[in-house]
């Protein structure tokens, strides 16, 4: 597999894994969950070092995932009390966990080099060089890991489609037909936590955070149908991955950064030209209404 193909494929799989969950985060107004998780994993890495004295990928991922899940469930609990809104809950939980991690490093591991960049945040440009052997062929490890996560997310979303849909739009109605909204929302959040942690290790934090939010927000501007939104989110993610990589090669720039910029450009484009919710469409509609009104007034007077 050529390095270019490996990188685009990895980014596309990240876009798929994140794009399947992102729409639900945007609809549930917790778009920043990915960013929260990216900070909350630090104590997990420190704890893994303290308990197992290792910085090997697998134990670190498990330790990080435990704290990622703690983080999302803590946010979910705080929100469910009804005393704190979800955005404030996010802003309370992840700084606390991150601070715990910083103190842990200071106290127990000051002489060991532990930080997020070195231990868990991978760099997408290096994915072609870290390979594993699958059925006799060498495949980049990131493709295997992120591919498995994307497949698991696809299974989750397909199996619980109707439940996820009803709890995202109308949790009260869901409760009356015996679909527990809190259980579903916990499931989505745990899936986000696991997806984020495994993807961080392959491609770094900012690409995952971007892929969870920006394509989903773009798709939200384009459609009112959930199934279209999810498909469009994944598609936009792939578009950002492919075009972003081409751009990164052309400008000789950071791969993750270029992909993020392409995703952002798509968002701006949708903001302006979306057929129903875009700025252009809305100003045209307003213009037309004003003209109609003027015509009616003229007819009344004349």
């Amino acid at each position: 597999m050529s390095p270019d193909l490996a990188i685009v494929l990895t980014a596309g799989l990240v876009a798929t894994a994140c794009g399947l969950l992102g729409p639900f985060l945007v609809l549930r107004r917790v778009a920043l969950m990915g960013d929260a998780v990216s900070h909350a994993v630090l104590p997990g890495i420190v704890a893994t070092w303290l308990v197992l004295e290792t910085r090997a990928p697998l134990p670190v991922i498990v330790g990080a995932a435990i704290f990622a899940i703690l983080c999302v469930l803590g946010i979910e609990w705080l929100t469910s009390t009804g005393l704190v809104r979800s955005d404030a809950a996010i802003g309370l939980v992840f700084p606390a966990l991150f601070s715990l991690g910083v103190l842990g490093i200071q106290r127990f591991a000051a002489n060991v080099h532990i930080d997020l960049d070195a231990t868990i945040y991978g760099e997408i440009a290096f994915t072609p060089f870290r390979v594993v052997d699958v059925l006799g062929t060498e495949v980049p490890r990131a493709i295997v890991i992120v591919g498995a996560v994307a497949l698991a997310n696809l299974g989750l979303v397909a199996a619980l489609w109707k439940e996820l849909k009803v709890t995202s739009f109308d949790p009260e109605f869901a409760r009356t037909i015996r679909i527990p909204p809190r259980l579903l929302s916990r499931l989505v959040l745990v899936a986000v936590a696991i997806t984020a942690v495994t993807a961080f290790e392959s491609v770094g934090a900012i690409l995952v955070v971007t892929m969870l939010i920006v394509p989903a927000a773009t798709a939200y501007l384009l459609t009112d149908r959930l199934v279209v939104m999810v498909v469009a989110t994944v598609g936009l993610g792939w578009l950002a991955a492919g075009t972003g990589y081409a751009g990164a090669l052309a400008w000789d720039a950071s791969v993750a950064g270029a992909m993020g910029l392409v995703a952002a450009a798509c968002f701006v484009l949708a903001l302006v030209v979306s057929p129903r919710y875009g700025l252009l469409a809305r100003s045209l509609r307003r213009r037309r209404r004003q003209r109609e009104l003027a015509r009616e007034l003229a007819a009344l007077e004349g």
Partner: protein
Amino acid sequence: MGWLIDLLPLSYPDAVVVCGAVALGVAAGVLGALAVVRQRSLVGDALAHSALPGIAIAFLVTGVKDATGLLAGAAIAGLIGAVVMVAIEHTSRIRPDAAIGVVLSSFFSLGIVLLTAIGHRDNANQAGLESYLFGQAAGLLERDVEVMTLVALVAIGIVALAFRPLKATLFDPSFSGATGLPVRLLEVASTALLVVAVVIGIRAVGAILMVAMLVVPTAAARQLTSRLSVMLVLAGLVGAVVGVAGALLAGAAEVPTGPVIVLVGAAVVLVAVLAAPGRGVLWRARRLARARRRLLVEGVLLDLETALHAGPPPTPRELADLAGRPARLVARALRELDRAGQLVREGDRVRLTEPGAAAAHSLLDQRRLWAVWLEHGWQLRLVDAREPDPRDLRGSLGDEAVARLEALAVAAR
């Protein structure tokens, strides 16, 4: 500022940290409240991330790592990020959380791309540009404290002078726009102050502390009051107290200040959420438990009254089977009735005392009256719209209304 720092009975570095923590806490508390109320709690996070391209551009323009230039770049980029965020919210169906997320990801991506571009220019001077903003807290300098104090004072001034329009803008932007209030101006002024506070804050104490300090004071203060004016004052106070407590604790334990302040703040919010009078999780749990127990005791009382009508005094076992209640709960209710003197035990059988029977009858009467109200209340033309209390219909509607209600019930029968 110097005189205040000298006045405190602390060593110079400690005094600077304590003064800085107070100023930061008050500024972040008051400004954060305005963001949290509008569900933009994480605006600090977005501003911290969007400072990166500003720093990169400032470096590209000036070519040196000069603190003032980089901070100015960060502030300008933060302001642009904030304006873009508000514009996305105003012009589309995107909600605050997603708008913040989009700004955060796009600006940070741009920052990374710019940093790689700087790296390729083979400029040895650029090393560590990123950690200039996101590195460990550099510690507060006296100048930071002065600027932060100024920000806090201006924030308090704006909020005090423009309290009423601000309140209207926070809770109903379209109404305040329609009444001609300068909605945009207020929003821009408070956002600009927030940007200044965040940019100084992330340089001095770290991005994560700034994110937390914007949310913690309001999240705690909101549990204690439902009035915006009280909440703003409380948020400022909580911010100052959390800042000082964290700074002193960190000084005593000789660990970094920022994380300790965050953890103290998180603990304060947790306590507030659990135990806020009349609102906290524990209070609600206690209220629920009391209501459940009262319903149980009343139910068992009526069961016993029914059983005594039908035959000989029942055993607790028979009483439990009668209504299908768990025997354990029935035993608990009987103990409570016993304590209230409404019950006598004859061997293993129970019967009601005189007061017990009276209590059962009044309860039955109360429930009957409520049923009548639900059925015929609409025919009762009351002079005002009173919401009656199910447990005291007579008290809340008055004797005359209840008499008419009874007449309606008789007529219907």
